[in-house]
Each structure stands twice: as structure tokens, then as C-alpha cells.
């Protein structure tokens, strides 16, 4: 019994990481209907950024966030203004193709720069520390990841519904022409949206790198998890994204508990079941 409970708790905490993967993806889809195929590779890019920061400055990976988050935001803003804004229009195919290309380019650049050897961010004692709750023992790092995920969602939710920036995000999402009439430069607003999305990728990348080893090829796998969390939770809902991440995480750990080979399979099966039963996810917000 305890073993199963343990699997579920680990799954919920893992879901926090998946929600972090997914939040940035959900955000830019909500603001500009852009499906970013390179999202997973950008998370891996952030992990390598953190690796370099740790090696050069000799700091703890969590401190490297102070470098990675601003750097990823700048990358996001520039990427949006120079490249992705040119692809947005009535046709949804060009941004798909361009971000797919970007994904290939990023993987190969990382391969050139860091080789295919698996790397890991060394978090030190925090990786093995745990707290006990009854018969359960909960790892500090997964717990921290989950807490950060919740904080990130709270933060994004607050930005979206309580700030001038959030108002601008929602306005361009509703109607780009009219938003432009009100004096909003949509190119700039989109740039800020991707900057915010990649800031979250930065956090996700560092936590991913502390949890498991990574190499340049794992981005597409993270993208699938992010997609599944977004779809399960419902398009456009940030809290739904967290719920989606948790459902996916629990499915994977419980599946893995039944048979170690079933871990990923169980996640995908639950995703397909949700698609079959509730094609719009649990908490859909987007009406299109």
C-alpha cells in the first residue's frame, strides 16, 4: 500500500516539472497561437547554459538561475522579433516549420559545442536529502521542483490577470488588429511573451538538469511531455496545465510501478484516454 502511495506522491511531484515544461508552451500558444516545436530543445539549451555558468563561475546550479533566466529571456525576445514574428500570419504552417527547423539547428549546435556525452548539473546534498512523512520519504529536490512550479503558475496567473502586461497579452490574443489600433506594437508584445516563456524554460532546464542527466537529443521527448500536459489540462488554462502535468506524472510513476518498462507508455495511454473522453482537456479556456 505504502509503495503505491509513494508512487502517486512521486508522480505528483514529477508533475510539477512537467507543468514547468508545459507552462511556457501554453503561454505563447495562448497569446499568439504559435506552436513552438523547439520548446523542448530550448529547455535543454537552458540546461547547458546552466552547466556552463556552473563551470565558469563555480556556483550552485540554483544560483545559476540568476544568469540563465535573464539570458533565456533575451534569447526569447530576440528570437521572436527577428525570426518568429516574420512567420506569424493567417497560415499556421510557417511557424510550425520554422520552429521545427530551429529545433534541428539547436540540437546540432549543442552537439557541436558540448558533444553527445550525457551531462548533469551537480546539486550536491539537496539531490539526496529527503523529508519523512509517515511511511513516505519525499525527496527535497522533487518537492522544491513542485513548489517552484506552483509559484511559477501563480506568478504567470498574476501577470496575466492583474498587470498592464497581462492586459496587453490578452488583448493581442483576442484581436491583433484592434490591439494595434490601441497603440500596442504586437511584435513587441509577442517578443515579451516569448521572453516570459523562455524564462520559464530556463527554470525548467535547470531543475531538469539537476534531476536527471541530459544530452542534446532529449529535447523532443520533453516537448512531448509538455504537449501532453497542456492538452490534458486544457488549452489556455495555466492551472489546467499544472493539473495536466500531475496527471501525466502520476500515470508515469504508477505505470512504472506496475512494470518498469511501462513508465512512458502509461503516460501516453492516459493522454490518449483523456483525448478520447475529453478532447478539449479538463479545464479548456480557448474557444477556438
Amino acid at each position: 500500500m505504502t509503495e503505491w502511495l509513494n508512487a502517486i506522491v512521486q508522480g505528483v511531484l514529477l508533475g510539477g516539472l512537467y507543468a514547468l515544461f508545459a507552462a511556457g508552451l501554453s503561454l505563447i500558444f495562448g497569446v499568439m497561437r504559435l506552436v513552438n516545436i523547439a520548446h523542448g530543445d530550448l529547455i535543454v539549451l537552458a540546461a547547458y547554459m546552466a552547466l556552463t555558468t556552473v563551470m565558469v563561475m563555480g556556483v550552485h546550479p540554483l544560483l545559476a538561475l540568476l544568469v540563465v533566466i535573464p539570458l533565456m529571456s533575451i534569447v526569447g525576445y530576440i528570437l521572436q522579433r527577428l525570426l518568429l514574428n516574420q512567420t506569424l500570419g493567417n497560415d499556421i504552417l510557417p511557424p510550425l516549420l520554422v520552429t521545427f527547423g530551429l529545433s534541428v539547428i539547436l540540437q546540432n549546435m549543442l552537439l557541436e559545442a558540448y558533444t553527445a556525452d550525457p551531462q548533469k548539473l551537480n546539486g550536491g546534498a539537496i539531490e539526496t536529502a529527503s523529508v519523512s512523512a509517515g511511511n513516505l520519504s519525499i525527496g527535497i529536490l522533487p518537492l522544491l521542483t513542485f513548489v517552484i512550479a506552483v509559484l511559477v503558475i501563480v506568478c504567470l496567473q498574476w501577470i496575466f490577470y492583474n498587470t498592464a502586461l497581462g492586459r496587453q497579452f490578452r488583448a493581442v490574443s483576442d484581436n491583433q488588429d484592434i490591439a494595434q489600433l490601441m497603440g500596442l506594437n504586437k511584435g513587441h508584445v509577442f517578443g515579451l511573451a516569448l521572453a516570459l516563456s523562455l524564462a520559464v524554460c530556463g527554470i525548467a532546464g535547470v531543475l531538469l538538469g539537476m534531476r536527471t542527466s541530459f544530452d542534446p537529443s532529449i529535447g523532443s521527448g520533453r516537448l512531448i511531455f509538455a504537449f501532453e500536459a497542456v492538452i490534458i489540462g486544457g488549452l489556455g488554462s495555466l492551472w489546467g496545465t499544472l493539473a495536466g502535468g500531475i496527471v501525466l506524472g502520476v500515470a508515469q510513476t504508477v505505470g512504472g510501478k506496475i512494470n518498469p518498462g511501462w513508465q512512458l507508455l502509461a503516460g501516453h495511454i492516459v493522454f490518449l484516454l483523456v483525448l478520447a473522453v475529453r478532447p478539449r482537456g479538463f479545464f479548456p479556456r480557448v474557444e477556438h
Partner: protein
Amino acid sequence: MSSLLEAQALNAFYGDFQALYEVELSINEGDVVAIVGANGAGKTTLLRSIAGLLKNDAHSIRFNGTPIGHYRADKVAKLGIALVPEGRQLFPSLSVEENLKLGATVGRKGHWSLHSVFELFPILKERRAVASTQLSGGQQQMVAIGRALMSNPDLIMFDEISLGLAPVIINSIYEQLPQVINQGTTAVIIEQDITRALSSASRVYCLQEGRVKLSGRTDELTRQQITQAYFGVAA
């Protein structure tokens, strides 16, 4: 008198389709200009061109002497031109107050603020927290007008100001119009109702199939001239 807005040889296109042909237009400061014409005459296209939603030749539109034909809509808005679009076009995911605040994005100073807009339309203050989709058509039009005023524009343009509204609502909107315009604002109104257009405007332009057929001071034109320009046939 100095021209606030001037259009010279303005041609506008939707892809290969030409919607405006060599349109000449001149609006003086403080004017209220009515644009009349049948459906498809190019009235909305003209306003979209001025507002920057359609790209044009730079010199075909001048505002205070500056060529703005090629400006993007947000740059035009910052210069002080506001458009109240046809069909209100409020932002559905924003509340009434958020819609109004978004209108102030350009940050121009002047008479209009959340406070003065609520004074003009008291009902909006009551319903400030409500989603804009839950308002009646007339209230939505008030938000659309308020949103445009929040930018403290020098020129405000109303596209089909009374389309889809009940006559009693249209009356009350027109009653508020002088208050809107008296704050040093120049206005352009597209109105299907010729009588109303003539009574509230000082100048009128009549468009037909993308061309200016007739223009002049409202007190110098006869109804017959306008009807003829409107329908393109002798009435």
C-alpha cells in the same frame, strides 16, 4: 485654416482588389466630417487606411503635415488618431475597465481619463468589472467610444456609429457626441442615416465605388445632390 488630416490621391487595395481610387480629403481642426455612401463604397476602407490598418503610399495621407500613409496602426495611434471600429470590437477576455485602460496605452495626456469617461457614461462605472461580452449593444458602443477617447486623440473616427443599435440608444449616443467633440477633438463619422449625418456634421464626403463623388459644407449641399451621389442615379 490649417488642415489636420489630408488625403491626396489615396489608392487602397485588398490584394489585387482596388477599394479606393484617387481619394482626396481634407479635414480641418475642430471639424465634424460625415462620410456617407452605399455599402461597399469604401467608407470603412478609408478609415482603415487612415488608422494604419491598411498600408498605403506614405504621402497619400498627411497628419499635421507629416506623411503617415505607411505608418503601422500603433504609430498612428500614438500621433493622436483613434478609431471606433465597426461592430464595437471590444476585447472579450477583458473587463469593461480593462478595455478602457487598454485605450490609454499610447499615454497621451488630456481631458480623458477613466474618471472622465465614467462621468460621460455613468452606467459603465457600475459595470466596470463585468466582462465586455455581457453588456448590451449600446453599452458596448459606449465602451468602444470610451476606449478610443482614453487615448486623448486629436482626431476620432467613428465607423458605423449607429449600426445594430436601437433608435433610442442611437439618440442618446448622438446626444453625448457634442461633449465628446467639444474637448478639442476633430471627428469623422460614418453614418448610414443621411439626415443624421447632415445634422451633426459640418462637412460631408460622399463616396461611391471607391471615389469621392461629392464633398462640401453640409449647409451648402442640397439633399438631392447627396442622394444622387449616394445612389449614383438621379433621384
